[in-house]
Structure formats: C-alpha cells, structure tokens
C-alpha cells in the first residue's frame, strides 16, 4: 500500500510540476473562452453594418411596401446609431429590362445545351457544334455593382401567384440574418398584395396570415417544466463527452510516454524488482487521474472567477439549469470509469511499445474508439432511446460518453444505467487484470515490438 502511494505521489507531483501541465491548465480556459466569445463578437459586428439591397421588382407593386416593411421592426431594422440597416435601391426600368434579357438569354443557352445533348446521344459523331448564342442583358452580379449595392433581390411577376420564388443574389449568402429578415418582410408584403381587392385592411391581413411557432419545453421528473432549449442540452451533453475524450487522451499519452522513458533508461528494472506490476500500473493510472482531477478543479475555479468577473451569472445558469446533483454524481461515476478503462489501454500501449513513434501508431485504434461517441453525438441527441443509442451505452468503450449524453438529454431507465455501470466496472477490472499481466512481461522487452499472438500467450500463461 505504501509503495502504491509512493508511485501515485511521484506520478502526480512530477506531472503537475511540468511546464506542459502549467501551460495546458492556463491555456485551455483561455482557448475555450475565446472559442465562445470570438464568434459572438464576429456575429455582432456583421449585424452592425448597413446593407444596401438592390430590388429588381418586376411586379411593379412590391418595392414601396417592402421598403416600409423593412423599417417596421425597431429591433431588427436599425443600427445602433438609429440609421436604417437595410437601404433599398430600386432598379431602373432599363436595368429591369436588362436583367430580364439576361434571364431569357440564360434560358436560351440552357435550352440549346439540352437540345445539343439530345442530338449527340442520337447521332454521336460529326455533328457540328451549334453557334454559341451571343450574351445579352446584364447578369445579376454586374447589376449589383452598377447599383452600388451589397445584394440584389429579384422578384418576378409569378411570385405573386406563388408560381415562382424571389431570388437573393449576393457575394455572401452565408450571413443568414439579413436573408431571413428580407424573406420575412417579403412574405408579409406579398401576402398583402395577394389579398388586394378583398377590402381587408393591411393590418388585418397581417393578423390573419401570422404563422405559429412551436415552443419546445423540457419535462423533468416530478412534472415540473424546465425552460431548457436544444442548444443548452446539446452543448452540455457533448461537452462532457469531449472533456472525457480530451482528458483521457492527454493523460493516457502522458502515461504511456512516462513508461517509455522508464523502459528506455532501464529504471523499469528497479521498479519491477521493487514493486509488483499491479502496484506500478495502478499507481500510475491513479496518479494521472489525480492530475486530471486537480486540473478540472483549477478550471472550475477559473471558470467561476471569469463568470463572476464578467458579471454574467445568467449565462452559466443556462448550463446549470439542466444539471442537478444526481446527474452530476452519475457524470462523475461515468467519467471515472471511462478514464480508468482507457488509461489501462494506454498503459498497455506504453508496456508493449519501445519507441514513441511505435506508441503513436499503436494508440490510433484507441483514439478512434474514443471518437465513436463524438461522431454518434448528433444521432444520440435526436434519438436518445434508439436501439443504437442503448447498444452503444452498454458497450464499455463508448458507454461513458454516450451515457453522459443520454443522461443530459432524457434520463434513461434505471435498469440501463445500472447495467452499463456494472458492465463498465467488470470491464475495468478485466482490463486491469489483463494489462498488469502484459505489463509484467512487456515492460521488459526492449528493442523488439511484441506481436498479438505473444500478448495472447502471456495472458494464457497468467
């Protein structure tokens, strides 16, 4: 027992004292904070810019209502300084004509292309290419430039009867905020236009055509209703899986690297002749587990401090709202069991390899195995109860992450929780047993990588 403690103590202190530990402890929260705030800042910045929109209204009736509509929402239609966000520019009749001309030209080119294709398939060889159609009109991109606009909305007459859809041309169609706003505005003005001749006042038309939104509400045990939303739950679930993945990978690699060092300088001989392989392996794994715990603790303290400094307690309340102590307790159990299982595998890698390169290759399957829950995350979030979800939450190597996700989304039946914890405990015990056998022999092999049959033979011999 004293020897086990001695090994744990050394692994812990020698890892905690390294520069890389200090750096990762300090840097990870910084990177995390940056990865959350930078997109937010960027999004805010793009929303703060004026957008000039050219409108090619071929119906001749929508420009003015659209212009009015895009001044109607005080939250969405104005910049900070009170100026309009969307400035509309109407296309001149000549520009409209050119745009139509271009559309016709495109249609002709397409039709000609199709015809040529058909002819070719009938008489494959020696048919003269038809003369190219000379381009006419103004393409939308050019028109945007001419109008000194950022985007162009083309509304064909058939839009009013629902036979055609308006088109939004822009160099950037990734910024969905203005697209959605203009779409909404168009919807309401087109509706009003469609009701023309019914004598209904525009306000009444708006009321009549207002859509409905479906609001998701999470139901918790005991019947109370939580104001959860999909984003928070998804984030929480995936957060735990990623944490487990990262922590296990980092400390697993540190573990196998440490073993390689000891094998390389032959300290391992002294260790093996002084402590049992089981003590050595367990000590190392637990030592690194302590490292992880202290790192998590440091991050929690830093995170709490950051929140307090930023004065945004509500934001953290979002994450905490799906949390309760029972859930946290389960998460702790799964995290620990998942770590122990993977750490044993990494220890085995350290024991059977002799060089760092070899170890990296051997680690690859373990890392891929750890990726499975992350790749499955979206499917799990959508269907936490499907056969696959349940299956993966019983398979020991994916159980910890998958169960963490499932618990954050929709508490699985107690039977499943107990079964998966039971399977995990048995797997950890089996892994420790097998790996300490491999340890005993593999640890002393140097200069020669062992083969799978050899490993199997040792396990049998044990």
């Amino acid at each position, binding site marked *: 027992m*004293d*020897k086990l403690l*001695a*090994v744990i*103590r*050394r692994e812990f*202190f*020698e890892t905690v004292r*390294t520069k890389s530990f200090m750096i990762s402890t300090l840097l990870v929260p910084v990177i995390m904070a940056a990865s959350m705030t930078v997109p937010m800042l960027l999004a805010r910045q793009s929303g703060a810019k004026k957008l000039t929109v050219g409108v090619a209204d071929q119906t001749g009736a929508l420009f003015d209502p659209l212009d009015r509509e895009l001044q109607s929402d005080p939250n969405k239609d104005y910049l900070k300084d009170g100026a309009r966000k969307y400035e509309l520019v109407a296309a001149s009749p000549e520009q409209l004509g050119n745009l139509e001309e271009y559309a016709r030209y495109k249609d002709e080119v397409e039709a000609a292309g199709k015809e040529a294709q058909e002819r070719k398939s009938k008489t494959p060889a020696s048919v003269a290419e038809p003369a190219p159609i000379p381009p006419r009109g103004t393409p939308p991109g050019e028109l945007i430039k001419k109008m000194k606009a950022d985007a162009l909305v083309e509304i064909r007459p058939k839009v009013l009867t629902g036979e055609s859809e308006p088109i939004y041309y822009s160099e950037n169609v990734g910024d969905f905020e203005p697209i959605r706003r203009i779409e909404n505005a168009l919807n309401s003005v087109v509706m009003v236009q469609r009701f023309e001749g019914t004598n209904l006042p525009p306000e009444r038309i708006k009321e009549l055509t207002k859509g409905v939104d479906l609001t998701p509400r999470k139901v918790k045990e005991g019947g109370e209703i939580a104001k959860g939303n999909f984003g928070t739950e998804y984030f929480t679930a995936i957060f735990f899986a990623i944490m487990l993945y990262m922590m296990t990978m980092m400390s697993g690699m540190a573990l196998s690297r440490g073993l390689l*060092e*000891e094998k*390389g*300088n*032959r*300290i391992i*001989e*002294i*260790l*093996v*002749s*002084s*402590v*049992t392989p089981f003590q050595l392996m367990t000590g190392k794994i637990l030592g690194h587990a302590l490292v992880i715990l202290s790192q998590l603790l440091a991050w929690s303290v830093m995170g709490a401090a950051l929140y307090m400094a930023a004065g945004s307690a509500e934001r953290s309340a979002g994450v905490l709202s799906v949390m309760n102590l029972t859930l946290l307790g389960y998460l702790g159990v799964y995290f620990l069991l998942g770590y122990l299982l993977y750490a044993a595998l990494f220890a085995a890698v350290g024991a059977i390899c002799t060089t760092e390169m070899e170890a990296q290759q051997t680690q690859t399957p373990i890392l891929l195995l750890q990726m499975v829950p992350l790749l499955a995350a979206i499917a799990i979030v959508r269907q936490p109860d499907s056969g696959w979800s349940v299956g993966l939450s019983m398979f020991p190597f994916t159980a910890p992450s998958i169960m963490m996700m499932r618990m954050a989304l929709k508490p699985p039946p107690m039977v499943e929780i107990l079964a998966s914890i039971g399977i995990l405990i048995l797997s950890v015990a089996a892994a420790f047993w097998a790996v300490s056998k491999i340890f005993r022999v593999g640890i*002393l092999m140097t200069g020669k990588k062992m083969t799978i049959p050899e490993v199997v033979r040792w396990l049998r011999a044990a």
Partner: protein
Amino acid sequence: MSYAASTTPALHLQGISKSFGEKKAVRDLSLEVPAGSVFGLLGPNGAGKSTSIRIALNIYVPDEGTVRILGSPHSPAIANRIGYLPEERGLYTKMKVGDMLAYMASIRGVQAKEAAPRIQRWLERVELGAYRDKKVQELSKGMQQKVQFIATVLHEPELIVLDEPFSGLDPINTNLLKDFIVELRQQGRTIIFSTHIMEQAERLCDAICLINSGRKVLEGSVSSIKAQYGRNTVALAYDGDGGFLRGHPLVRKMNHYNSYVEVYLAERADPQHLLSDIAPRVRVKRFEVIEPSLHDIFIDRVGETQEAAPSREVAVG
C-alpha cells in the same frame, strides 16, 4: 572468512534456464552465494550474466529452475531487502536529486521521513551535498553515477546486486565504488557483482562463478580456484633461443609478455623437471612458480569451452 560459514546462502539458483526465442541465454545454471561474501559473476560479454541476475531478482521468470533469495522465494517483502543497480543505469533525469532518491527509497519501503536524513548524509559523503535540489540532468555523468549508487543502497539492503558496476566509471569513482563494496561487506552485507574485468574480481571477491555461453564453467572461492591452478604455472625469463619450449612435452600452453613468458605446465608435470631440462639450453634469468591471475584462468577456461562449443549461441547481455 565468513564465506566458509555454513549459514543460509544469500542467493541460491537451482537449474536455471532461460531462452529468448531461439537464443538460450542461460542453461541449467546452479550457484550459491554465501551470505556476507562479495561474489563475482564473471564471464565474457553475452555470457548470460545480466540474464542470470534478472532472474535472481524476479525481473525475468526462468523457463526452468528455482530461485531462493535471502532464504525464500522472491516476494514483495524480500524486495525491500535487496538493492539493485542495473547494467544500463538510468535515472529520472527531470526529477530533483533529493526527490528521486526519496522515491527510490519509498518503493523499497523506507518512508520519506526516515529517508531524508540518510539522503543528506549520503550526498554529503560523496560531495554532492549542494545538489539535492538540482535536477538530475544538470549533473555530470560522474555525479549521476554516484547518485545511482546511493539509490541502490539507501534502503540499507542486506543483499546488493550490481550489474557491471565498474563499466564507464572514471578512476576516482572506480575507487569510490571499490571502497563502498569493502565497507558494505564489513557491515555484513552480501554483494553480488558481475564483471568481465578479472582484476577487479580478483581484488574484491571472496568467491566467483565463471559462466560462458549461459553455462557455469567454474565456481568457488578465489583462493581455492587459484590453489587449484597455482602449482601449474611458471614465470620464466631467459636469454637465448627458447624455440624448443614450443611442443615440449611438459608445456601445455605459453603466454608471452614483454619481459617474461608464462608457461602452463601439462597435467602432473613437475616444475623441477622443466627447470632441469631448460637450464643447459638457455641462460635462465628468472624461474618462479606463480599463482595464475583470474584473468589467465578466465582466458584458459573460456577458450577451452569455446573450443568445445564452437557455435556461440548466446548474444544476450
């Protein structure tokens, strides 16, 4: 000589064999290390010395045979009573000297509190008192060797096993280590060390075991081994043509040195007969019946077994 005392042997190997794949590193090796003695495990490189030591220390499991160490089979409790210096000596280069020594003591059952004053005492003794809080990698090679040695004996083991302890040491550290070995023996501890340098073994060992190609060639106290060979060797110096000595019926083998020739006599040959035979032919300047060195015995016996076993099947250190 405590060696002769009939106490429980510190180490007893019985019929040990170990193969690595096709290579037979150790073959049916039996030996007994008397408690309280300095025991040399001798042999050329690749003879199986390190493998035998690792088997004795439960680092390797033998294919056949049994090991009794300090009177019983290997166990965690017994591990605390053994000090071991591996051949390729390694240290945790990034740890502080004091921390590393404390760790080495702790895995042999010595608590930190107990270890701290010992560490200071030892470091001061080898003039490294100021280096306790330095990282191991900041030390010179010679200093690291001293630290390694301290790590071996810090837990005050009864049995100390040193694998090629003198290789790579400078003359000062060689002397220091020699003094340590003598001192440890005086304290009643047993020291086993392996070497291929016979002069050291000759000066330090009470008993030796000579192995070659994984087999035991010779075992016993140094004095008895020498006595066995002693009456058979003559140091001879002369003026004149000594060519007739080659092929002389009384001469088994000759070893030429700068100023004299070592002549190994044939079995049961009387040196007196040789003297009377050569006296009329050359001018004898020196004729002395000498004890052969372990070196000579080593060369003699290893050469012999190699002739007997022409293919060298062993290449494991």
